[in-house]
């Protein structure tokens, strides 16, 4: 039994008025204790892959795979209860825009505490203490204030750090981050990424990061998977992106602005 995420032959189709639309068309890859980037143009199926792993696609989506396991747990076959323990507890997911991904009528603190209580089996005071620690760990200077704040009271960068704290709370072994910085101001992108990187290494987590930003891939990742029209067209070390063979990858790279 191998550790980490193993996917083989993943296919996803969405129902539509013109019949099924194949969004992911036979994808194979693994993620161990490493940082893997999933890149590709818009609509190539990256988010669909990320959500399929947690079985969080809308009802109109149909998933099929030859194999989709995490540490030996069959992610497609297991029942909903088991899956709930995987979500958050084993595999966490960070979404793109903290302004939409945090519940607007619940304080940030409650939302982090909720993560602990869903998995940790710990009491309220203990959860609160750990939540404050976690907020400090994502370099929030005034954890007490942010804990009591509502999402709309935070800046984009702070919101995204609060979300990272929320997702890391239950101590997942793999983190899926779907464009974690693209909704942020250019000025705070780098610091949020640095924090993410620091925590991933500190906790020994695996990371699957979905992004358009090839500079980010080169700086923060070990490997890159290039997606196009629902397929992985190339897999290569992140450092080797610039020397990619596939014309599509070269075109992608050529289109990216340099840092």
């Amino acid at each position, binding site marked *: 039994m191998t550790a980490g995420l193993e996917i083989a032959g993943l296919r996803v189709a969405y129902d539509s008025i013109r019949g099924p639309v194949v969004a992911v068309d036979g994808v194979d890859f693994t993620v161990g204790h490493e940082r893997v980037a999933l890149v590709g143009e818009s609509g190539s199926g990256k988010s669909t892959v990320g959500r399929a792993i947690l079985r*969080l696609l809308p009802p109109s989506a149909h998933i099929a795979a030859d194999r989709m396991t995490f540490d030996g747990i069959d992610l497609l076959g297991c029942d909903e209860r088991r899956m709930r*323990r995987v*979500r*958050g507890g084993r595999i966490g997911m960070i*979404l793109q*825009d903290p302004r939409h*991904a945090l519940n607007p009528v619940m304080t940030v603190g409650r939302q982090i505490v909720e993560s602990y209580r869903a998995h940790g089996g710990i009491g309220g005071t203990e959860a609160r203490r750990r939540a404050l620690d976690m907020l400090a760990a994502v370099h929030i200077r005034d954890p007490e204030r942010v804990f009591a704040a*509502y999402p709309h009271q935070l800046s984009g960068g702070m919101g995204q750090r609060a979300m990272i704290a929320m997702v890391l709370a239950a101590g997942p072994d793999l983190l899926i981050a779907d464009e974690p910085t693209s909704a942020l101001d250019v000025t705070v992108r780098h610091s949020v990424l640095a924090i993410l990187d620091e925590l991933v290494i500190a906790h020994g987590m695996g990371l699957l990061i979905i992004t358009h930003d090839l500079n980010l891939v080169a700086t923060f990742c070990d490997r890159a998977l290039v997606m196009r029209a629902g397929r992985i067209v190339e897999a290569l070390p992140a450092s080797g992106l610039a020397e990619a063979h596939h014309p599509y990858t070269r075109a992608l790279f050529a289109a990216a602005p340099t840092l």
Partner: protein
Amino acid sequence: MTVTDDETFRMARGRLRSGAVLAGSVAATILGLLLVTFFIGRVIPVDPVLAVVGDRASAETYAAAREAMGLDEPLWRQFLIYLGGVLRGDFGQSVLTGRPVLADIGRFFPATLELATLATLIGVLAGVPLGVIAAVRRGRWPDHVIRVVTLLGYSVPTFWLGMIALLLFYATLDWTAGPGRVDLFFEGLAQPVTGSLLIDSALAGAWDVFGSALDHILLPALVLGTFSLAYIARMTRSFMIDQLGQEYVLAARAKGLSEARVVWRHALGNTAIPLVTVVALSYGALLEGSVLTETVFAWPGLGAYLTNSLLNADMNAVLGCTIVVGIVFIGLNLLSDLLYRLLDPRAR
């Protein structure tokens, strides 16, 4: 009962006006309301004096009323006279009861409020869960069943439903008490404190009166609550569908929360805010719907008073009721505005 879905959406979205603008618009709306009732009472009727004093009035009464209404004056002066009277709480005399209209309304309104409140309670307690279930099971059979049920609730004439309910549950099955507010035997036994017979009798510990009152109110409240149930369920469904599509719901699921918690805590927590407006609007609609329901159930409230006044062409009473219900409508709107600010952290 005429609140429509679109209006609700408009009202739920068009929030967050500043306090001054709000006060100004409330004042302007009340002024408009009085202008309309003035026209209905003083301009449309061929002989407005007769419409107000009734055709059995003596020559002196007629002359005095004519004098008080200032009918020789230009229209705008007449309106000012009318406005002055209404603002001082003088809605004129009721031809039917011979008492000041405002005193009559004060006597009959509590019964209506009691009925409408219970009906709204039923509507909220049943409508919200139904709406949530329909949204969660969207497009599948529970959703279809709930849709048909709520559309039936929109489509049924309440006065007829009341009659059928009486026929079935009172005359045939004998499960509930018949028309009226309480068994004749208990009439006037509970000391009126709040005006709600249920609360008054409970306060006084008169449980037999309470039981009889509950027996009597259940059927009309259920009948009146049908509309509110349908309306609240439909609105809950569409607000919930909106919310369930939001990113934060995905994030909550990705945290490993139970589906129940995601739906009832996260999504419904956000739905509750616009729902406040819906409940306020449906409460207003029920006050209006009570006009017909009370007639059927011989419920001694404002609706029955208004109907009696209508049938006797008692214009002062009719317009008095119109103004009072209109002002309650405006008040409910204001209240839902304030609650909205209180509940939504983004609006504070």
